[in-house]
C-alpha cells in the first residue's frame, strides 16, 4: 500500500538571536491510508512544528513532503487552498482555537464558506450534519464557544476539521486539555470517525498511554529528530532506544501492584539551538560514550523498527 503522506529529510529551522534553532531536523515518515501515526515526545521536541510544517502552516526549511504521491513541498496559494480540502488540523487548546465572536454553527461551516464551492443549501445541510457527526445537540448551534465546556469545544474543533471531508488530519494534542472522562469520549469519537470514513491521522501527544491506544505506528521524537519508530505493539513489546525506555518507565502506572523499575534521567531536554552533531540525547543518556558524539545513523533493528542509537545493540544484548 502506498502511503498517503510521506516526508523525506524534512527540516524546519528558526533563526534566533543565539543561532539556528533546529526544531525539526531531518524527519522521514510515512503514514498509510486509514492509519494513525502517533508522534510522541516531550515539550520542545518539535512534534507540533512537524505537524504544522506538513500542513504548510509553517514553511519547511529543507526536505520533501509528499501527499498521495505528489510533491507538495512548495505550493502556490491557490494549490494550498486545494490542499486544505484534503488536509486539516485539530488543535490542542479548544479555548484559544475557536473565534469567540462566532457561533458554533458559523465556526463549523466556515471552511465551506471560504472554499466558495458550496451553495447556501449545501452549507445549511452540512451544518446539521456536522453537529450530528461530532455528537453536539442541535440546541448548541447558536451558542458561542465560551458557553461550552472543554469537551464540547473540542467537538467543534473536530467538526470544523471534518467540514471539507479531508482525508488526512493532524491531531495536535487534541485531548491534553481535557479531563480523563471527557478525554475518553473524544478518543472514541476520533476512532469511530476513522473507521467510518477511512481517515488518516497524525496524532501528536506527550501521553504514551493515549498514543498506544490510538496509533498503528509510533514515532518517538527527541530534540527535532526521530529516535525510534515502529508499529505500536512492536514498540511497546521491544523498546530499544534508551530515551524511549526512560520515557516509558517515567509514566506513573495506575496499578496498585505494578511497579516499573524507573530509569531516572539527569536534567531536562537541552537547547535545540545550534545542537552538536552527535546524538542529542547524549547529555542525559545513562549509556552515553564517545561514539555517541558522532552523528547517529538510522538503523532498521527489526523489520519496520527503526532506531537512531549506536549503542542500542550493546545495551539490549543483541551483539
Amino acid at each position, binding site marked *: 500500500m502506498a502511503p498517503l503522506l510521506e516526508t523525506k529529510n524534512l527540516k524546519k529551522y528558526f533563526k534566533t538571536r543565539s543561532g539556528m534553532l533546529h526544531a525539526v531536523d531531518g524527519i522521514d515518515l510515512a503514514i498509510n491510508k486509514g492509519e494513525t501515526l502517533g508522534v510522541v515526545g516531550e515539550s520542545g521536541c518539535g512534534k507540533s512544528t512537524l505537524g504544522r510544517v506538513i500542513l504548510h502552516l509553517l514553511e519547511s526549511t529543507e526536505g520533501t513532503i509528499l501527499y498521495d504521491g505528489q510533491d507538495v513541498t512548495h505550493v502556490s496559494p491557490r494549490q494550498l487552498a486545494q490542499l486544505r480540502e484534503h488536509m486539516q488540523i485539530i488543535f490542542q487548546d479548544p479555548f484559544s482555537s475557536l473565534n469567540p465572536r462566532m457561533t458554533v454553527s458559523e465556526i463549523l461551516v466556515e471552511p465551506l464558506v471560504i472554499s466558495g464551492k458550496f451553495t447556501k443549501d449545501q452549507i445549511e445541510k452540512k451544518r446539521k450534519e456536522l453537529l450530528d457527526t461530532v455528537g453536539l445537540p442541535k440546541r448548541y448551534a447558536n451558542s458561542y464557544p465560551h458557553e461550552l465546556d472543554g469537551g464540547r469545544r473540542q467537538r467543534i474543533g473536530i467538526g470544523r476539521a471534518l467540514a471539507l471531508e479531508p482525508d488526512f488530519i493532524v491531531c495536535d494534542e487534541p485531548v491534553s486539555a481535557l*479531563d480523563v472522562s471527557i478525554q475518553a469520549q473524544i478518543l*472514541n469519537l476520533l476512532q469511530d470517525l476513522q473507521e467510518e470514513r477511512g481517515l488518516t491521522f497524525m496524532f501528536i501527544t506527550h501521553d*504514551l498511554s493515549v498514543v498506544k491506544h490510538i496509533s498503528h505506528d509510533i514515532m518517538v521524537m527527541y530534540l527535532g529528530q526521530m529516535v525510534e519508530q515502529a508499529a505500536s505493539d512492536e514498540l*511497546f513489546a521491544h523498546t530499544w532506544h534508551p530515551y524511549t525506555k526512560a520515557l516509558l518507565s517515567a*509514566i*506513573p502506572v495506575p496499578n496498585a501492584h505494578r511497579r516499573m523499575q*524507573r530509569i531516572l534521567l539527569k536534567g*531536562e*531536554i537541552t537547547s535545540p539551538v545550534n545542537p552538536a552533531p552527535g546524538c542529542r540525547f547524549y547529555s542525559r543518556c545513562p549509556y552515553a560514550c564517545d561514539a555517541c558524539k558522532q552523528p547517529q545513523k538510522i538503523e532498521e533493528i527489526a523489520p519496520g523498527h527503526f532506531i537512531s542509537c549506536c549503542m542500542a545493540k550493546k545495551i539490549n544484548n543483541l551483539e
Partner: protein
Amino acid sequence: MMGDNMMNGTQNAPETLVDIKNLWVEYRIDGGVVHAVNGVDLKIHKGETLGLVGETGAGKTSIAKSILRVLPDPPSKIVDGEIYMDGEDMLKLPEHKMRKIRGKKISMIFQDPMTALNPTVKVGTQIAEAIKLHEKMNKAEAQVRAMEMLEMVGITKERFSDYPHQFSGGMKQRVVIAMALACHPELLLADEPTTALDVTVQAQILDMMTSLKNEMQTSVLMITHDLGIVAETCDTVAVVYAGEIVEYGTMMEIFDDPGHPYTVGLFGSLPSIDRKDKRLKPIHGLMPDPMNLPAGCKFSPRCPYATDECRKAVPPVTEMDGTHIVKCFRAREKK
C-alpha cells in the same frame, strides 16, 4: 522505587493531623451561588500521603485552600465546617495566628511554578524570606538554611543568586518545593505539583518529593487528576465529585476494589499501557453545573446504576472493609 504505601491500617490507628468536619464552601458570583465544597469530612493522618482525586471543578483545590484559609473572600466563603489541627479549629483562629501557621506548619505548592515565584527576586532570597518570617534567625543564618534547602532539592547552592527565569520548569518547581519545606511543615498541600511538567521531569520531582517526605516525616495532601501518580505516591485516597467525597480508603482498597460508580468510571476512561482495549469506556455525560447541582446523588445523571432512589435522596456513607467508605446506595453490589 517510589511510594512505600505504609498504611498502618488495622493494627494501630494512625494519629490524626488535620480533621476536616462538614466543610461547605461557596462562591458567590453574578447570577448565583457556586457550590464548590458540599459537606466534606476528611482526616489527614500523620506521615501519610493522602491523594485527593477528581476532575476539573470537583472542588479539590477549594478544600486545600480552605485548610490554609487562602480562599479569596469575596467571592468565595467557607459557609460551614470545622478544620482541626492540634486541637484548635483553624477556621476560628484570628488572622495573625493563621499567618504563623501558613508556611510554617502547613505550606502549599501549586501547579504552575512560575506564578509561585517572584520574577524580580533571587530564588535564594525568596527561600530565605520564608525562613526569616517563621524562624528566629538572622539574615546570614537564613541564607545558610536556604542554601541547604536548595541542595536538598538537587540544586547547587551556587545558584542561590539566580533569578527564576534562569531555571527550567522542573528546576523552578524544585525551588518552590525547597521554599515550601524550608520551615519543616507538618503538612504539605501539593496542588497538581507536576501537571505542568514533562513525564521524565515529573518522575524526578515525584521521586524527590517522596524521599523528602519520608525524611522529614511530613504529611502530604496530593491533589491530582492522575491515577498513576496516586498509585505511585499515595497511602490513602479520597475521590472527589461535585464537591463531595464519594469514596475514601487506602490506595490498595480503592485500586483493587473501587466501590463508587464514578471511581469505576475513572478507571474505565484511562487508556492503558498494559492492556490493548479496542474502545475506552468513558463516563457518560458531563460534570454537573455547580450552580445547579442535581437532587439526590450528584452523580446519578451520569451513573449507569442509578435508580429512582438515587435521584431523590442523598446516599448515605456505606462502610466497606477496613477504612474503605463509599457514598452510594448500591455500594455493596458488584460493579
